[in-house]
Structure formats: structure tokens, C-alpha cells
């Protein structure tokens, strides 16, 4: 690969569209991969070990969900490389999940509400 700063490296996809795709290769990538691995492993071990402590279950649920989201961030950002894609692509992938948050809030509330009908005699 040439060192010319005025050039952008990449490849042509080689199919009928034959688009040019820019490629950045960073030799430090492998260090980042292993760092991500240790972080994920540490979080998983922490999760399994705090599951058996006497901490209140309600607090544990919040901690588990928070740690899960941290793990998801590391997998998507570094393993799936989304962090280094263009912002237009990042947002068109992440923003639809607002709908899932809405679904969770609505549906779990409904789950508690179905319970109400247990005490209605004619149902």
C-alpha cells in the first residue's frame, strides 16, 4: 500500500455495481479486539458472581440489564465495527430500536394488568 496521503484506500466490490468501498486498516485492531474480549469476560463473570449475593433482587435486575446493555455496546461497536461506520448508517440502524423500548414499556405494563382479571368472578 502506498503512503500517499492524498489517496484513499479501498477496493471495488467486483460485482455488477462495482462500487468503491473505502477501507481503513489499523494494525492496532488486534489489541482492541482482545481488550474487548477481556471486558466482555469480566462483565459475564461479575454477573454470574453477583447473582448469588444477598443484594436485593430489584437492585440486581437493574444492574443486570445495565451490564447487558454495556456488553451489547461492546459487541456492536467493536466486533461488528459499527462505531467506525458513517453516522448516517449508525443512526439508521440504532434509531428503529426506539420502537422496541416503546413495545417493552407498553407490553410489560399490560402483563401486570392482565392480573387484574384474575379477581373478576365471571371471567
Amino acid at each position, binding site marked *: 500500500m502506498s503512503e500517499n496521503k492524498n489517496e484513499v484506500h479501498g477496493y471495488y466490490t467486483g460485482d455488477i455495481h462495482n462500487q468503491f468501498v473505502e477501507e481503513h486498516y489499523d494494525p492496532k485492531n488486534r489489541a482492541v479486539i482482545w481488550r474487548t474480549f477481556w471486558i466482555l469476560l469480566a462483565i459475564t463473570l461479575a454477573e454470574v458472581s453477583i*447473582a448469588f449475593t444477598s443484594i436485593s433482587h430489584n437492585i440486581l435486575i437493574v444492574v443486570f440489564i445495565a451490564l447487558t446493555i454495556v456488553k451489547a455496546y461492546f459487541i456492536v461497536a467493536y466486533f*461488528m465495527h459499527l462505531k467506525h*461506520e458513517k453516522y*448516517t448508517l449508525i443512526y439508521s440502524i440504532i434509531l428503529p430500536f426506539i420502537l422496541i423500548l416503546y413495545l417493552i414499556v407498553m407490553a410489560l405494563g399490560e402483563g401486570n394488568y392482565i392480573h387484574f382479571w384474575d379477581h373478576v368472578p365471571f371471567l
Partner: protein
Amino acid sequence: MSAEATLTKEDSSKSIWGGGRSPFNISWGKMYMWFFLVSDAFTFSSLLTAYGVMRHRFAEIWPKAQEVFTHFPFVAGHLPLAYVGLMTFILIMSSVTMVLAVDAGHRRNNKAVALWMFFTIIGGFTFVGSQAWEWYHFIEGTEQGALIMPNGDHYRFTEGVKGAPEHALIAPNHTYITDAVEIAKIEKEGRPVHGANLTENEYGHPLFGDFFFFITGFHGFHVFSGVVINIIIYFNVLGGVYTRRGHYEQVEKVGLYWHFVDLVWVFVFTFFYLV
């Protein structure tokens, strides 16, 4: 068609929307994979949300996963969560080998890509095998099992439950029954069940088993298809297909799918086993 290529900075800044190059700097194939994964993530989210709804509905009689999944291969006794923790480790590890294969592809190192792909396939098979083992023990159940009363209430024996008193039964709401007369009455009227299937579950509400089989089964199906796709790509790598093509984008695409499978497992692990 040329493989390794360069554009000059001027060219590249002028023509982003002018055709000839990808505006999002991602090939159409990778774009397809990303949006397929978004839709697949919606499917899994819906399944896990449905699980959450039923769990809230039956909150006080829902089984505790720490009391259900307590087996570990070649080890007698009860090690709750240990095996599923190991499965999580195996899947994360195979994700690492996958991303190392993608990295080797960026370096155009065909041998390294093949080696890391091979390890990824091994990791995938190990995970699927572990899941089969987990299913076997869930279907088989404990030796003592549980008693189902004519009205559908479950009373479990205390086998494998940490901190439970001896000669006791566990009521559906997780309290212990130690009164000998009451125990005798339940043992007389109750029908024994062992393990879990789609209509019965010795550990508690049958919906727990239904969701477990469906969600981990659907995930396992994804892992299995991922392994099959990985094998196809592995043989392409061995055959030098990507050396001739000049880029390893196909490895990146299958890598995205494989990381997604790992990502889903992170959520299944939390919502089925931890919370």
C-alpha cells in the same frame, strides 16, 4: 475487475453521491446484512418481550432459573449458572476468533483467515452441543420431580435447592411447606411429573418451558445456520475464492451475522438465567 484500489482525495470528496462509490461507504451486500439483522433483532425483541409479559403476569409463581439449571458435565452436585456461564464464554470466544478472521482479511492473509474461521466453526459446534445438553437435562428433570395437584398447582421437592429445609415441599409461590400432615395430603393427591415439555414443567409454570424451548431453540437454530454458513465461507477461503476476488467482504458479512448471534445470546442469558 481490479481489487486493491485507491482514489485520490479530490475524487473521493466530490463524488460521494455522484455514483461509482458507496455513499454510506458500505457495499450493498453488507447493507443487506445489517438491515436483515435489524429485522431479526426485532423478532428476538418481540419474543423476549412476550416472555416478559407472561413473567409479569405470573410473577409470584414463575420458576427461578438458578433452581432449574444446576447441572454441570462430569460434576456431581449442583452448580447453578456455571454451565450457562461457560456457554456464554464459548460464544464470546468464537466471536473473538471471527473478528480476528475479519481482521486477517483486511490484511489479505488467506491462511490466517482460514485458521480463525476454523476455530469459529469449532466454537459454534461446541455451543450447539452445549445447548443440546442443557435441553436434555431440562427435559429429563430431577429424580424426585414435582407433584401436580388436580387444580394445576405445582409442589416441588427440595432436591437441588440451596438452603431448603429437609423433608419439605416448595409451594408454587416459593415458600416451604414443612407440616408433615399437609405434605402427606399433597403426596396423596398429587400426580408426579419429571422434567419439562410443552404442556408440563416440574419447575413451575408450563409457559416457562414453552418460552425456554422456543427462544433458546430459535437462537440455537440461528447458531446452527451460522455454523453452516461459516463452513461454506471456510471452504471458499481454502479454495482461494477471496484471494482471486481481492477482498474478504464475504467474511465480514458472515462475521456480522455471527456477532449478532452472540449479541442475542447476551440478552437471552440475562433475561432467562440471571434476572
